[in-house]
């Protein structure tokens, strides 16, 4: 069997998730032994016309990016969205809370009207093309990424946890952030990160997006028990879950 050809592309993002792949360190060697990386701007200059697996990092924020993404989709057998920006739109969706003209003026000032600075509302990759698999998180968890790649190489369908962050948080024996008078998004956020934030004494920001079927109503109901308001909750959800449907 020939090795699967993999190409990695980035759109609007900080490239932090690609950096997580680079940070696999010695495992990178194993990775490239298992697959053929045929295109990866961050690490090589070659380009390729065809790939078995296309990995997309970043959100789609310009009309021309939509075209580029559709072309990639046509050439790829499997398309994977990598990281919060690609999977849900992530932080980039903060922009969608405002008027587009105001956003342009705020960021580019007097140059806002220049054609090369044209911008649109942020879309997740899945809002433009069909996505086969997702690797959530800001940034991704590289161990999870490695497991997903190895599953695919084996012909197994990778499965993400369908339970919330609280599971991993409890397994690490943390005191709950709610007991510290904080709002934590753990109960409605998909696990798989091993709960690094609550384990470091911080609430979960929800960077991995909603768990399937999140009980957002319950989240609203418990606010009263903890002396919080809906606005407190909304402000916590803004960063990673702006303009998200409550499903991934």
């Amino acid at each position, binding site marked *: 069997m020939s090795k699967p050809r993999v190409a990695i592309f980035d759109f609007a993002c900080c490239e932090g998730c690609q950096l997580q792949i680079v940070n696999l360190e010695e*495992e990178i060697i*194993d*990775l490239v*032994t*298992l697959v053929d990386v045929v295109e990866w701007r961050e690490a090589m200059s070659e380009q390729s016309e065809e790939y078995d697996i296309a990995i997309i990092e970043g959100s789609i924020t310009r009309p021309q990016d939509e075209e580029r993404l559709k072309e990639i989709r046509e050439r790829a057998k499997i398309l994977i969205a990598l990281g919060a920006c690609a999977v849900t739109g992530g932080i980039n969706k903060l922009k969608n809370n405002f008027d587009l003209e105001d956003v342009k003026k705020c960021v580019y000032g007097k140059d806002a009207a220049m054609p090369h600075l044209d911008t649109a509302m942020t879309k997740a990759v899945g809002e433009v093309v069909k996505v086969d698999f997702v690797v959530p998180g800001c940034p991704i968890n590289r161990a999870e990424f*490695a*497991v997903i790649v*190895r*599953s695919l*190489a*084996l012909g197994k369908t990778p499965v993400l946890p*369908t*339970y*919330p962050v*609280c*599971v991993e948080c*409890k*397994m690490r*024996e*943390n*005191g*709950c952030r*709610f007991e510290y008078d904080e709002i*934590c998004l*753990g*109960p*409605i956020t998909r696990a798989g990160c091993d709960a690094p934030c609550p384990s470091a*004494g911080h609430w979960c920001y929800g960077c991995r997006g909603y*768990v*399937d*079927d*999140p*009980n957002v*109503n*319950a*989240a609203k*109901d*418990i606010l009263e*028990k903890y002396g919080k308001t809906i606005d407190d909750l909304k402000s916590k959800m803004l960063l990673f879950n702006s303009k998200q449907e409550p499903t991934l």
Partner: protein
Amino acid sequence: MSVKKLDKKALNSWVESLVAGQKVFGVQAKGERFAFAELTDASALRLDYDVTMLPPKKYFLPQREDLLTFKRSGGHESVIECDPFVLLGVHPYDFVAIRQMDAIFEKDNDDIHYKARRNAATIVVCDVQNASENVFAGCMNGAVVEDGYDVLITGIGKDYLLDAGTEKGEALLHGVGAPDARAEDMAERSKVWEANKAALKKHELKCAPADLPKLLGSSEEHPVWAEKAEGCFSCGSCNLVCPTCYCFDVQDEIDWNMDSGRRYRCWDGCMLTNFATVTGNHNFRPKVEDRYRHRYYRKGKYIPEKIGEISCVGCGRCITACVAKIANPVEIYNRLLEGK
């Protein structure tokens, strides 16, 4: 078997000698709460703790443990880890839970992984000195244990009684140069037990635990299940922190060489959405309500039918751990007693 009486200083030297000679896991502070962790400094031991966040089951059924290693090209080998260790400071309710787990894991297929860890352990139980905010072990026959432990520590006034219940326990106390407890010390211990039975009742179950299977037998359609399920996140916290929850999931993981790999198990919980999902993606408890009800049936009916004991020991951890504050077994059982 003997009961020794130690003052604080003698107890501390005994713990020091334990720590110096073997692997010891003891209760220590973690943030503002408590957790079992490896004890390397005797002075970090906190026998005055109220409750640990996770029960000591993590030493017999770890959060994640390898069961076997395999090669796709052929062959597999069981992984069994069993370095001897001392578990120091287990509260009676948690010890009752461990004995229930022993009964469960012995049934049907003997679980060799559990058994190896269990046989490697010497368990030092410690009577509760400070009640946690939600404990109700006093209602569930979990406030005190009178046998089965390797060693039992009871604080009486300024002193401690150390009672060796088994040969293993006797060996652990070997060389402790302390006097034997006198009759009046034993009477003091009985007082502590009586006091704990009354004090560890922050919630009051309005029936005998033995009545629960029958009560549940006629409560399938009670409105409380749907009502409470509305607030449930399916987060499984109530399962994970429970000393009698033992469910696990089994997964395979392949190495980069696409040949070698391992089969591991990790904690699972019946409150999690896909707990009951089987081949073909069929979930036989798809509704939160079904899962929510199941947990109480498990504790109050299904397990008792298997081992003859209610499988809630009243540690109160689920009550504290549930963010939505809907996981209190006493509240639910009392509500069922009301009928509607």
